[in-house]
């Protein structure tokens, strides 16, 4: 065998970085990414915040959370349908890299996009709205872990073997939109009704918002340790489930190439 153990992992990481570099060149400025990944969360949040006296410890974590969630999960669902339609996926599948390497590269591109774009609301919160940054390392780790987690979620969303990016973007909003209402974005978990407090832990976005609130000195319902563990757990589950779903749908997808 050509690749075993360590060298196989190294090859996978190298391949994923190549794929991610290509994705960054092509997909970051695609209209669906800018609309659903940047403008959509911005306007959604503005419609919630403008004209209301939202406390700073709700406003800034909500703004960071929703941006991170939408941006990190918006690039990866677009890539596979796009590449199926243009048949460029054929180039990648016939190369000596596995399907999981391709998926990991797409996740990486989405992950980096999430981190970059989330810096905008964070900068706005810190320097325009005057939020206090109390725990910088927690904020950084939270952004990194959450961005990876949401990119893995985006990877799951992209599994249907369609070649129509618009179908996937609609499917993606069908999953993402309900999540923002149960994740303490607009109302902190502690102020939610009883049913809200029961279902909030089921959303990874809840822990992102809670950690951001904690890092900015606000009150939280979960300890930062629990939040980090839960985001890491969601990431692993999303990654494994995403790989499994794509393994199942990929033969059907390549038939359309």
């Amino acid at each position, binding site marked *: 065998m050509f*690749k075993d153990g360590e060298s196989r992992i190294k090859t996978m990481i190298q391949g994923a970085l190549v794929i991610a570099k290509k994705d960054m060149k092509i997909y970051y400025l695609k209209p669906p990414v800018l609309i659903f990944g940047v403008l959509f969360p911005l306007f959604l949040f503005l419609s919630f915040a403008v004209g209301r006296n939202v406390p700073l410890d709700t406003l800034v974590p909500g703004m960071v959370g929703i941006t991170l969630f939408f941006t990190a999960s918006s690039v990866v669902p677009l890539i596979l349908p796009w590449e199926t339609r243009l048949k460029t996926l054929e180039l990648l599948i*016939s190369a000596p890299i596995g399907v999981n390497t391709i998926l990991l590269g797409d996740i990486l591109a989405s992950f980096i996009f999430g981190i970059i774009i989330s810096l905008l609301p964070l900068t706005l919160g810190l320097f325009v709205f005057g939020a206090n940054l109390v725990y910088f390392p927690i904020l950084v780790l939270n952004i990194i872990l959450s961005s990876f987690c949401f990119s893995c979620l985006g990877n799951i969303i992209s599994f249907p073997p369609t070649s129509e990016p618009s179908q996937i973007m609609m499917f993606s909003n069908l999953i993402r939109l309900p999540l923002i209402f149960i994740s303490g974005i607009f109302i902190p978990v502690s102020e939610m009704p009883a049913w809200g407090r029961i279902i909030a832990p089921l959303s990874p976005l809840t822990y992102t918002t809670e950690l951001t609130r904690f890092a900015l000195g606000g009150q939280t319902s979960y300890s930062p340790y629990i939040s980090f563990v839960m985001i890491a757990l969601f990431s692993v589950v999303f990654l494994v489930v995403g790989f499994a779903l794509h393994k199942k749908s990929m*033969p059907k997808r390549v038939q359309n190439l």
Partner: protein
Amino acid sequence: MKPAIKVENLTKYYGKFLALEKIDFEVREGEIFGFLGPNGAGKTTTQKILTGILKPSGGQVSILGYDMEKDPYNAKRFTGIVPDETNAYVDMNAWDNLTLIGELYGMPKKNIEVKAKELLEIFQLYDRRKDRVKGFSKGMKRRLILSMGLIHNPRILFLDEPTSGLDVQSTRLIRKMITDLNREGVTVFLTTHDIEEANQMCDRVAIIYQGKIAAIDRPENLKKAVKAAQSIEVSFHRQVEIIKELEDLPEVDEVRKQGDKIRLFTREPGKVIRPLVEYAHKNRLEFLTLNTLGPSLEEVFVKLTEDKESVAGV
């Protein structure tokens, strides 16, 4: 010596539709192997399985001894692919497309740069290397795709309809490149509709029909095998109005008028010459040309696929 490509019992179902039925063949190292067949015969499915894009429903494929199912990394490492449709990244420039493929095959950066420059120069794209592929003509895109298939110095090159729909200049450039590469030892698997292209370029040809291999041999052997398609081509100093009499000549199976020439199809050309001369003498006709012709590869192809159709009762 291990074959470059070995296919055993290869079967592919799409749902309940049987696209490939237990096909077997080998491609020797260093040969140009043509893969011919009508639309829907299974050509592209076969090529996609050989290149690891599609998974077979049954059977085995090995590339230079590496099993595609068990060891896809090594099996894919040595192959270059030029698909029938241009699938370069149109939002990237030519240079980035080439370097992407080089990186995917794990080439060192320096080697990628040297090889990319060399290929872009050969294919007359170097001056346009920083232009987005979106603005390229069909011929330019095709040349770029060929460069992308060659960047990592593959030992086996898969080409699917490489010259289809191209202008004469691009066609000649690509054909020359293929023969040059083959001379350097690259094995070429050429899927094509263009029978004349296969006839001119291929060492051996396989004809696939309805998911089964109808024949595999050297083009000239295939032509010899189809005796019924041998013919005598004749032209007289004046037009022959009635060809019924020619059809009645002994050993003549069929007569076809083609422009100012007449072709008499026969299994025994030698036995037709004398009656034909007598016919000309009787009708006061002077010969302008008289040639005995073997079947073209196209006729072999039609004959073989017709035979298969009649066996299948289509």
